């Protein structure tokens, strides 16, 4: 098999890898905020549930969570799971990353001095206005380096979808390596992940820079 054929074959997997990547960010970035806010809920039960969710997700391997999301419905309820492979992967990734993002958000929110809330309150801002206009922009700036780290990890973690034999770039690399007894597919996959992360870093640096106008 020529390197060109390998690249063409793997490019299909690259698209699928990007699919997992973007859907996870799309779901987990906002969901993480909801989780972070629920963690600060007035209700003990809500805080408790969210706390358990975060510690379970952070305390178990993502690979295991993916297996659980995919096979769980069958083992628990006897449901047929044909067609559930991709949704299970996305649910697994989103819920996993939402927990990590939530903790980053929470740290960011708690790092904002109480004086910012008081100044906003005295000026008559509503709770929503205070959060959206005063607190959140400052939180985003503060958590950017941590978010960048997490996104870079996500790029690499997408390869865990091979656990469920989803045909993303790493699974295909393994298959080509098996049929061609060649290490080349792994080199291509490595370069792919590296370049993807290089782009992530570049974009995130730009975003961080765009918020450099204040301290």
């Amino acid at each position, binding site marked *: *098999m020529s390197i060109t*054929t*390998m690249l*063409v*074959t*793997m490019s299909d997997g690259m698209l699928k890898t990007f699919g997992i990547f973007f859907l996870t960010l799309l779901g987990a970035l906002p969901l993480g905020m909801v989780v972070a806010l629920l963690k600060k809920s007035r209700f003990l039960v809500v805080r408790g*549930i969210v706390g*358990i*969710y975060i510690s*379970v997700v952070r305390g*178990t391997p993502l690979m*295991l*969570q993916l*297996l*659980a999301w995919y*096979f*769980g*419905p*069958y*083992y*628990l*309820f*006897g*449901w*047929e*799971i*044909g*067609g*559930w*492979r991709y949704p299970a992967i996305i649910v697994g990734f989103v819920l996993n990353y939402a927990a990590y993002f939530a903790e980053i958000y929470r740290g960011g929110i708690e790092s904002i001095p109480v004086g910012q809330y008081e100044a906003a309150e005295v000026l008559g801002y509503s709770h929503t206005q205070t959060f959206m206009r005063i607190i959140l922009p400052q939180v985003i700036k503060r958590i950017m380096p941590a978010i960048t780290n997490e996104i870079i990890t996500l790029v690499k973690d997408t390869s865990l979808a*091979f*656990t*469920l*034999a989803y*045909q993303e770039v790493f*699974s*295909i690399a*393994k*298959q*080509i*390596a*098996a*049929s*061609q*007894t060649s*290490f080349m597919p792994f080199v291509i996959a490595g370069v792919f992940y590296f370049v993807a992360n290089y782009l992530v870093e570049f974009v995130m640096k730009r975003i961080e820079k765009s918020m450099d106008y204040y301290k």
Partner: protein
Amino acid sequence: MKKIVASVLAIAMAAIVLVGCGGGASTTTETKSTTEDTSTGKIAAYTEEDLGKDFVFKHGFDQEFPPYAYRNDNGETGGFDVELAQAVCDYYGWKYEPVPFNWDAKDMELNAGSCDCIWSGFTINGREDNYLWSMPYSDNEQMIMVKKNSDIKKLDDLAGKNVGVQTDTSAYTMLTEGEQKELASKFGNLQVFPDYTTAFTELKAGSIDAIAIDITTGDHLIKDDKDYGYLEEKLGNEQYGIGFRKGDDVLCKKVNEALDALVADGTFAKLGEKYPEIQPYLSLGKK
């Protein structure tokens, strides 16, 4: 592997269910029964009506098992078993759906209904009671692969050596609980790999001394590498078949009938010619 995953699953999901719905107490016993009997799933068996023209045949296979199922030189999903399954579908006008899975998870995939069969160089021997089997269509031999100038010349020389094998293959079963268990107990170490590609890389690198492998897979690995060969002494024999969920008799019967027809019209033999590594071992139509 399956049992561990299943029980961890049960715990994790139970926690989620308890928190989420506050119910689900009755599911525990069901989970247990499915883990103990590997192939009696709750997925309903197909009836004659289900298997009409619009039936979608979900072919479950390990895509890293050349030459039966693999990425071919064009980067497409191919292999003898994949093409044979497609031929069966064509025979009935069924729609073919490939379901590549990880070999570790094959039983979970089958039981949970994400595929209708396990069909990629799947050894019947030792698993007779676990699945509903089609007729065997290929023979195979378990061999020991070594470097040609290796000091290992016969099976007894393997004592104290590091031997590699792919997890959950028939060679693996043979060495861990089958007829060659005693031989394996003399090994220095039986190193279990997720796939044979990795095992072969390690053999080349010298970190293991030999690989226990079926000959068709082995031939594929060493087809461009004349430095490697097999011991003359065989590890064992086996037959390949298609594993269905127990109770899926109608589907199994239909596939058997299709295989007979494909042998009769020469499709099976023609397919064999495309895969010279397998051809000598194909057992159908050879009377």
